[in-house]
């Protein structure tokens, strides 16, 4: 079990504002780590920093090599798939085209085809809507599409930004179940940002809690789940 993603002393800056103050965490290969915190805590910023979508200082290493400062598209090509806030669907393109774009950087045709079949096994609804304009899909379907597109990249690491956002509870459960399967069956490591702390802590094996750009707690998901402070602030009991 090696460290897949290592973040050391990360600062993130938007214009004049410093959003992250020396955040450090790491993620083991094959694991699911979740970042928790209230609105504005810096969770999304952290994910965006990993892909260099925001100005950063500090060290970020992926599979042992430094990636901070690299262009977003180059980081992606190393095997990091980011499912962004708001899904990032290509709304004017069809579902099929969205999926094809996921595998844009790959050359292995047979495997790409196999991965498409895989995606349809996880999300049969997408197969029904292949020719439909992606923007007309419901929120849940778009989330499925976003995750599928990330899968088509055949990533080693998937970054997921609030996958439960704006979705009905049943849909969310289905998606989280599939995320667990993807992690176990396809061996994709995941870094999950979530406001729905209960769901996230059930899925993940490790957790970090962020408050105003700093890590205030870290540990195994089970430990964090049972922590008094976390229970009161984020789990509501």
């Amino acid at each position, binding site marked *: 079990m090696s460290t897949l993603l290592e973040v050391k002393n990360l600062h993130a800056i938007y214009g004049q504002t410093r959003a992250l103050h020396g955040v450090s965490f790491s993620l083991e290969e094959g694991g699911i780590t979740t970042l928790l915190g209230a609105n504005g805590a810096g969770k999304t910023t952290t994910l965006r920093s990993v*892909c260099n*979508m925001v100005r950063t200082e500090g060290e970020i290493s992926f599979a042992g090599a430094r990636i901070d400062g690299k*262009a*977003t*598209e180059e980081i*992606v*090509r190393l095997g990091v*798939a*980011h499912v*962004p806030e708001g899904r*990032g*669907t*290509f*709304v*004017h*393109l069809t579902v099929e*085209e969205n999926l*094809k*774009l*996921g595998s*844009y*950087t790959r050359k292995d045709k047979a495997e790409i085809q196999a991965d498409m079949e895989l995606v349809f096994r996880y999300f049969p609804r997408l197969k029904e809507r292949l020719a439909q*304009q992606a*923007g*007309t899909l419901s929120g849940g379907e778009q989330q499925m599409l976003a995750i599928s*597109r990330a899968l088509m*990249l055949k990533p080693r690491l998937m970054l997921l930004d609030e996958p439960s956002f704006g979705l009905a509870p049943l849909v969310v459960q289905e998606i989280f179940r599939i995320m667990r399967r993807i992690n176990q069956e396809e061996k994709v490591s995941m870094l999950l940002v979530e406001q729905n702390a209960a769901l996230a802590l059930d899925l993940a094996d490790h957790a970090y809690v962020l408050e105003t750009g700093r890590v205030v707690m870290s540990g195994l998901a089970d430990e964090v789940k049972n922590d008094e402070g976390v229970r009161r602030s984020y789990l509501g009991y």
Partner: protein
Amino acid sequence: MDFVIQQITSGLAEGAIFASVALALVMIFTATEHLNFAQGEMAMFSTYLAWTLINAGVPYWLAFVITVVISFAGGVTIEYVVLRPLARAPVLAYVIVFIGLLVIFNSMAGWIWSYVLKEFPSPFKAFATGSNLIGSHQLGVIAVTLIVLTALFLFFKFTPLGLAMRAAAQNPVSAKLVGIRVGWMLALGWGLAASIGAVAGMMVAPIVFLDPNMMAGILLYGFASALLGGISNPAGAVLGGFIFGVLQNVPTIIERLLNINVIGNELKLTFALVVVVAVLTFKPSGLFGQVRIKRV
């Protein structure tokens, strides 16, 4: 009856030119989601380059190819040097820059080659069509346009690169997240558009004579055609061009049949304007374009 057919075929030939310009515009729009107001002047400038080559003794088709290649390079350069720094500026900033380019190309052409009208050869004159209903150049223009169109259509619809270009234009952030090098896509789009524009210019110059202001009206017709057919659809834009080309001759046909003279040739630009406004008002996605739905 002959008159009507001649009007239709000349409409189709002119339409082919509008279609080429429309194609270039759709190209840039597809790649960058912007309407390039300088497209006409860039095409005109390319045509002057071709003229210089031909005048220096270079055979036509060689000059044609060289011009297309240089135009491609020019388009890429402009995107890289002039537009890249603009990045996420508002639409107005882009419009201003395009207008700036328009004005620069227009004056430079006038300065380098003067405003005296020049003749530009047609490569199709060698073939006689044996009919007085349609000329050889007209036929050639239509053929060239259809070839270019088909190539582009296949490129965008069926190749991964074409898909990547569309994605990069519509959502650069998401495109980066699937590993697309967005910067290259934009440059590619501009290069392609500049090449297509060059072809359009070289097709129109034999008809209207080479002059720095030759493309202004044609640009508007090109826009009208692209909008009519659907700005997001290359095939639609070309079809729009042909339709528009014939459409603008319809008043003439009707007037000839009824023996009156109201609109004549004088108000063609106004006619184009009316078409533009009407299409944009009643069917903004054009006859064949994709209707774009915005979910809040």
